């Protein structure tokens, strides 16, 4: 069992800290839409935090905020005692390179005109420790070594997502942010890729924020789970506590909607 839970081990200085963070989008007709409001979260070292909620609840916006791809309307984000500044036109500051992201759609996140080797080499250059090589990365994500010579179009969705994971790992991240990294994959691959991400992140000493709408996958890989609804975090707790003893009615609703694979013919909810 890879999911050992220990809520008390979060060290005094968390690796990543969100303090009352909010984010707003401008609407076409004037006015603003508050996608994320007053979110406070902490991520410890070597910890996997699952972030779950329905579409439109602000999970992806939160992921973008953490990576500096959106500008917070209020609050503070601190990574490794540095503030996370929104990314401008300039180069991302070196101390923020420790945050790497795996996106939802593997068809849009790889460059179609460059060989896999080149794309991985770019990311490898960011890691001063030289933990990985192209070959060891491909091996870690279960791809054949000749994949390095090929272009992204010759891979299936699951294979592309593994390349995207390899590329994120290559930079030697301290925090790996996965924004629905498994949503576009087959049900049979989802659990496997999710476990692969967890194992690779933890083995390389990184933490991970794993965003998903699928609570049953999050249950398999996360140490702690945060449940989001309408821009706010309604419940945070150890995975076992959320799974077995949910407090918030919304968490209960999410859990009861998961169809069981028991062949009983019962429609959930």
């Amino acid at each position, binding site marked *: 069992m890879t999911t050992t839970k220990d809520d008390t081990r979060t060290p005094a200085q968390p690796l990543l800290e969100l303090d009352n963070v909010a984010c707003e989008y401008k609407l076409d007709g004037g006015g603003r839409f508050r996608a994320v409001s007053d979110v406070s979260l902490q991520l410890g070292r070597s910890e996997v935090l699952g972030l779950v909620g*329905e*579409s439109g609840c602000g999970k992806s916006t939160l992921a973008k905020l953490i990576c500096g791809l959106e500008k917070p309307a209020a609050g503070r984000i601190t990574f490794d005692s540095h503030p996370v500044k929104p990314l401008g036109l300039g180069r991302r500051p070196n101390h923020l390179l420790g945050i790497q992201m795996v996106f939802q759609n593997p068809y849009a996140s790889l460059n179609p005109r460059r060989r896999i080797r080149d794309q991985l080499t770019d990311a490898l250059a960011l890691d001063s420790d030289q933990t990985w090589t192209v070959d060891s990365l491909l091996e870690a994500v279960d791809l054949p070594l000749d994949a390095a010579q090929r272009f992204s179009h010759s891979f*299936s*969705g699951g294979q592309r997502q593994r390349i995207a994971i390899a590329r994120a790992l290559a930079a030697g991240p301290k925090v790996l942010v996965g924004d629905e990294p498994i949503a576009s994959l*087959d*049900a*049979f*691959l989802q*659990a*496997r890729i999710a476990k692969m991400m967890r194992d690779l992140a933890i083995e390389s000493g990184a933490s991970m924020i794993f965003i998903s*709408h*699928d*609570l*049953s*996958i999050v*249950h*398999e890989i996360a140490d702690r789970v945060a449940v989001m609804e309408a821009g706010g975090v309604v419940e945070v707790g150890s995975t076992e506590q959320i799974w077995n003893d949910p407090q918030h009615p919304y968490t209960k*609703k*999410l859990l009861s*909607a*998961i*169809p*069981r*694979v*028991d*062949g*009983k*013919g*019962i*429609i*959930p*909810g």
Partner: protein
Amino acid sequence: MSVISIRDLNLTVTTGSAEKHILRDVSFDLEAGKITGVAGASGSGKTQTGLAIMGLSPDRSTLSGSIDFAGTELVGLPSKKHNRLRGRQLAMVFQDPSSAFHPMLSIGDQITDHLRHHRKVSKKEALRQAIRILGQTKVPYPEEAVSKYPHQFSGGQLQRIAFASAIICEPKVLIADEPTTALDVTVQAGILRLLRELCDDLNLAVLLVTHDFGVLSSVADTIVVMESGLVVETGDREPLITAPQHEYTRSLIESLPGAEVSPR
């Protein structure tokens, strides 16, 4: 008595000089009032089986074998004759509701188009039927919904509208290709309940294509498991899920979190 019976269906697609065998001797039946689930990984041919029934197999593909639809042979049926069945007797709902609708036509126009074409009913009568059918698929405020546009609805509501569009001509067969994959779990349960109700109330023969055994476990009556174009196992829902016979079925179910497979 099965509504559709598929026997030894083969599909080959030719690209350039290479021939690819998509379906190999696929055989199973669809029965009225029953949901037949087809499971398999991507590329196993489950969607192509559905499309073959609809007569929508890709260009430069050859279909052989037999699909018997209440006495009509669908394999090799001229496209004009297939057109007369499609939308009227054979209906389909697709995976992504947001791309299944034309963004610039009102809901009322889109879901009555085939009704007016096949049944030659007046525009007024078609709209009246659209409102009734939207009520049946539990779209909120059907009278207002007919004059709205797709972007004004959520994904779950659009999928309900897609089901309304599919059943408006009172079809005998409904093919639902991953109807809940693009939706949230909480919305998924509602769509599955709708599918079950439509199947029972209208005595539809439903083909439910999905890779999610959770979905099949909730609504399917019989399950067909496919692997690279071959049917590896067919059976009733509960025995197939709790005690799969074929190694591939077992591996699929075991790969899911929280599956309850009895140890062999």
